[in-house]
């Protein structure tokens, strides 16, 4: 297997509504920004893999139009209709196989052109879940209730995640939401579906992220600072949330186990310096800590309380502010990968990047990156 590295990334400034631009504008500016940043021409890109959602775009087979704006004219091109972190896994496979040297991944959405509730409601199957109004928030609320009562995790502990990530976002120029919050602010914010309150939920953003992956030869040829993808795995669980034990994220645990094995990571505490986690809701970051082996099962609340995952902790998580600070659906997970790659290519060490998809964290993907 050829070694594969992330050699550059770019993001749009994520915002609630970017009414002036259509998705093609946002994609072009982000991809152009990436090429400028790494001083490469579109001719240096061998393949383009996109990630976006037809329902959010209101246009079926939307890459008919978007791919050209990512530079895919007469190129190898394909599309993963899931978070960009999954599209990056496909780009990884193409380079790892030796079929190409460089691959560009772009992921985007304009939640403000459509209604994110409709997007999420469409994930609910039409026979069992949709008639009950089940969508991302209500499904997560049931999961939170299960998790809290099983392990005595508290709403206040979940609130600490929201506070931490919004504070981290203060230093992220691309973030949509940032600020200094108190537990009281979170607890008093409007209830969406108990125990989830407005501030526990990620916002909806218009935005794009682009990433450039390269083979070892290309890294040398272009003289880039690489973040090597040393471990990569992903996993999917059963669809119907009631058919799963919602208190543990089996698919994230499986993915992490395999990614660590591939990367030869044995001692997470010692070997992992940094993590970016895709946390659609504050409490889910705690559950993902557990699945990624950052702490024992049920100890996620204590981990965040200990301050270990803060900026100054032993394993900082989501210095970018995470999904809670900017959430362009389909780009949110790819942003985790971009942020983790940026950090370790500057500071060295190993990082974990995680992304998720589906109700109650149904699918998860885990990367281990290394400078």
């Amino acid at each position, binding site marked *: 297997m050829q070694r594969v590295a992330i050699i550059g990334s770019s993001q749009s400034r994520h915002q609630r509504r970017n009414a002036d631009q259509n998705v093609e504008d946002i994609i072009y500016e982000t991809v152009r920004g990436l090429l400028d940043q790494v001083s490469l021409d579109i001719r240096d890109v061998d393949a383009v893999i996109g990630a976006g959602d037809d329902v959010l775009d209101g246009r079926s087979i939307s890459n008919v139009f978007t791919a*050209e*704006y990512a530079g895919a004219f007469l190129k190898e091109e394909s599309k993963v209709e899931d978070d960009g972190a999954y599209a990056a896994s496909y780009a990884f496979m193409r380079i790892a196989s030796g079929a190409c040297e460089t691959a560009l991944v772009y992921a985007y959405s304009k939640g403000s052109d459509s*209604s994110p509730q409709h997007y999420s409601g*469409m994930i609910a199957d039409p*026979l069992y879940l949709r008639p009950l*109004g089940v969508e991302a928030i209500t499904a997560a609320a049931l999961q939170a*209730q299960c998790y809290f009562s099983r392990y005595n995790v508290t709403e206040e502990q979940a609130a600490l995640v929201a506070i931490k990530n919004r504070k981290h976002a203060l230093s992220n120029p691309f973030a949509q939401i940032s600020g200094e919050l108190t537990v009281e602010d979170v607890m008093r914010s409007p209830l969406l579906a108990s125990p989830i309150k407005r501030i526990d939920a990620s916002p909806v953003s218009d935005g794009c992220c682009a990433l450039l992956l390269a083979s070892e030869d290309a890294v040398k040829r272009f003289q880039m600072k690489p973040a090597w993808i040393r471990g990569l795995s992903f996993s999917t669980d059963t669809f119907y949330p009631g058919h799963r034990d919602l208190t543990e994220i089996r698919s994230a645990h499986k993915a992490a186990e395999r990614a660590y094995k591939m990367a030869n990571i044995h001692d997470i505490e010692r070997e992992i310096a940094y993590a970016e986690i895709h946390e659609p809701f504050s409490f889910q970051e705690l559950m993902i800590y557990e699945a990624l082996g950052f702490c024992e099962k049920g100890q996620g609340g204590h981990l965040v309380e200990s301050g270990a995952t803060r900026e100054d902790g032993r394993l900082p998580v989501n210095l970018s502010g995470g999904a809670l600070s900017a959430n362009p659906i389909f780009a949110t997970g790819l942003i985790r990968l971009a942020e983790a790659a940026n950090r370790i290519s500057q500071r060295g060490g190993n990082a974990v990047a995680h992304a998720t998809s589906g109700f109650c964290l149904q699918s998860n993907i885990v990367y281990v990156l290394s400078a």
Partner: protein
Amino acid sequence: MILHGDITIPYKWTTGPAIGRFLAELRDNARIVGARCAECNKVFVPPTDVCGQCFKPLDAWVELTGEGEIIAASAVHYQLPWSPLPPPYTLALVRLDGADTELIHLAQEGLKTGDRVRAKFKEERSGTILDIDKFVPLADATVEREATTTQPLKEVRGQVSLPYRWSYGKALSRFFQESRDNKRLMGTRCPRCLSVTVPAARICTRCFVEATEWVEVSDHGVLETFTTVHLPFPGQPTEPPYTYGLILLDGASTYFSHLIEEPVESLRCGMRVQAVWSDERKGDLFDILHFKKEES
């Protein structure tokens, strides 16, 4: 500029044997059934087609009493256009006696983890998950049994309606402003290959460079190809028969797509055509009514 619109599509979802049986039992017998996996013995409620773990179809039926326990409950405080009830209402995970999984359904307000509950059915039932009205405390539900034989439901009908407010984006906003206000068709010229994209676009996609020079092109051009649509389908925006085609406007390097209003027999690839402008222009494709044969 923004285009407000929607996508609305009617569906007839095929249930398949497992879900079809479950829904038919709700409708005909006010009864909840589960399906047991012959391999791992797990009883799934509600049943789906396949046990994912064993990769075997679920087709051994188990009748349940409709009684069980609340595993989790959430009070929902926001409204969706398709919410089953006005908020606040309670959504719960219910573990029915005899099941190894949980059913997601509505529950009476105030119910909490550990409470014993029973399904309360609606009087009028049509074969949907909402035939169960909600889960209520044991004492509040009467047991109804109308044991009849039942045929699995084949399909459930419904509709999806998605609202949109699409941004035109930078280039098309200016293009349609010019067409609306000045009856002018504008293109953008590529600084590298000099081709002119019409309607104006942000970039030349061949060269992948920004096309910043705006040029006016003619509203006359050549009909490159055309078709007369006869096929009707539900929800069609224009009623057939109608003719549309691709026009290479004088000064443009890309095709412009529009309606052609001429007797079909007189149309030829390569013929000259011209735009017929509308008097009421709103900044969309129908600022031009259609194209017609060029007047000599």
